């Protein structure tokens, strides 16, 4: 087994920033291990000339699978494509930046190949000639140094763990390969899509964000959140769970899916603080958490935490902030 394959996800015709960041990190790892790095691109109507630019982010070779089945956002056809790439490429490691699609695709690939799988990797190290990841655990209180015992190892890195540069302008040869699709991989079909519609202020630009989660109780709980945000002159953010439940619009969502935000002040109300949320807001300047569950993971990475009922604390805080304003 030779080389590192990086699954580069294409959304709306371009490779995601997360994928570019992982490709650059894989290139550093490749140098340390003496392993070549190949970018694997799966999609439909892919522009090969644009993909050659992945050479500027560390790819020695770019391999493209182009098929309508690969453009649906459904993971299993991508498993087939990666397995086909593996058949001819014989890669030692597969690495992808976590997304809804790539995490499922890498899990499927690991199962198909009987390969070890590490998810939520935050660092990639070359140790003793092999890849040893750092997998974050127990609410990020510990890093497990995870390696592989299998000939092939598969890694899903945490969203936003590796920030991409603008590249060095280089290019790499692009070749095409033809995946062989399995029957069960074609048994899920995309029948509809609603684009997230931008509503309200852009939360990526706000200095103060007041965010609400399931602890609000129901959609009406956002009323007090909006009042506090208004008192600060800030904007309202939401977790995936409450967006999925229809309490608040997708455009306000912070997390692995949704936006990555870095306000000066982030006030998390009724948010337990799962990793998927954390990766979208951990770059905030000051983090405040209000939650009735003192064991909520959010308290592990907040600067100031209040254990209590947000329905009484938030309105009080709103009044106090207004009095000063």
């Amino acid at each position, binding site marked *: 087994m030779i080389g590192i394959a990086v699954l580069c996800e294409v959304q709306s015709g371009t490779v995601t920033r997360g994928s570019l960041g992982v490709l650059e990190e894989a290139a550093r790892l490749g140098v340390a291990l003496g392993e070549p790095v190949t970018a694997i691109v799966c999609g439909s109507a892919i522009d090969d000339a644009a993909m050659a630019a992945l050479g500027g982010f560390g790819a020695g070779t770019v391999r493209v699978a182009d098929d309508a089945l690969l453009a649906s956002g459904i993971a299993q056809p991508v498993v087939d494509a990666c397995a086909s790439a593996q058949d001819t490429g014989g890669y030692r490691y597969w690495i992808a930046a976590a997304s809804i699609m790539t995490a499922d695709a890498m899990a499927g690939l690991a199962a198909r190949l009987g390969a070890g799988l590490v998810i939520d990797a935050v660092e990639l190290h070359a140790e003793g000639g092999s890849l040893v990841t750092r997998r974050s*655990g*127990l609410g990020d209180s510990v890093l497990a140094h995870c390696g592989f015992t299998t000939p092939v190892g598969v890694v899903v890195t945490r969203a936003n763990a590796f920030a991409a540069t603008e590249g060095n302008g280089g290019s790499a040869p692009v070749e095409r390969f033809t995946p062989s699709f399995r029957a069960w991989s074609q048994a899920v079909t995309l029948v509809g899509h609603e684009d997230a519609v931008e509503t309200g202020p852009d939360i990526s630009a706000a200095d103060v964000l007041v965010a609400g989660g399931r602890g609000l109780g129901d959609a009406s709980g956002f009323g007090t959140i909006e009042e506090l945000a208004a008192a600060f002159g800030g904007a309202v953010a939401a977790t995936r769970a409450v967006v999925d439940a229809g309490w608040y619009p997708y455009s306000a969502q912070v997390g692995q899916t949704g936006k990555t935000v870095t306000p000066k002040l982030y006030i998390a109300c009724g948010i337990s603080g799962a990793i998927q949320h954390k990766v979208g807001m951990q770059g905030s300047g000051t983090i405040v958490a209000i939650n009735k569950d*003192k064991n909520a993971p959010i308290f592990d990475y907040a600067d100031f935490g209040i254990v*209590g009922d947000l329905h009484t604390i938030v309105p009080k805080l709103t009044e106090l902030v207004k009095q000063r304003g």
Partner: protein
Amino acid sequence: MRIAICVKEVPDPTAVKRIDDSTHRLVRAGENTLNPYDRHAIEAAVQIKEGPAPDTEITVVTVAPASAGRSVDRALAQGGDRSVHVADDAAAGSDLLGTARILAAALKRESFDLILLGQQAADSECYVMAGLVAELLELPCVTQAASIELGAGSVTIKRQVETGYDTVKATLPCVVSVSDAINEPRYPPLPAIMGAKRKPHEVVSLAELGIDAATVGAVGAATVVGGLSKPEGRGDTIVVEDDGTAAAQLLAFLVEKKLVA
């Protein structure tokens, strides 16, 4: 129809979790509970049984030490009809692939129409078990389902992706992991809790599933933890319990940080 739900026992969220320095495994000696995310999968199955498919049988499947019976009972109390509990010392120390192999073998013995999972495990935050199990079973897979609509020989599922919401249709049998926003799991009433013990419990070993013990557990693990280290922290957290003055204390903190005028 026949629905299987893969569940996991996890340490009680109120317990202080730690990893053993020598084995590098999570210490599971304390109080354990049914993974909270799995309760949404059970509720989703119960809603199918209460709605479009009343003849549904719900089977709870788990890989856990024999001591996990209480968590299995909790799952049955919430609406499971029977359980398949893979309890075998040789399964201890299984990594993601090993656990998936055991679950797949337990699921393969029977013909389920729908295999449900919660979106992630509360202890490891692992969110890829559905993808692993589906591939081993060679079945279609949909993750992060925010709604499930049962059709004739298929399910239609709405799910969140980075660009908005997709609606996908999958033929049965298939593997589905559900979002924690798909429903609000009901607490089982007391008679259901009392009655759970009397439901059919099947405890099986790896040998009974035809699994070569060398391919699972610590021995067969495809990943190995060679050490542990501490990540860089954010620094100290001030935590106050609200006694009526918490909002004022927070304001003082924000003023000191110059975040409020």
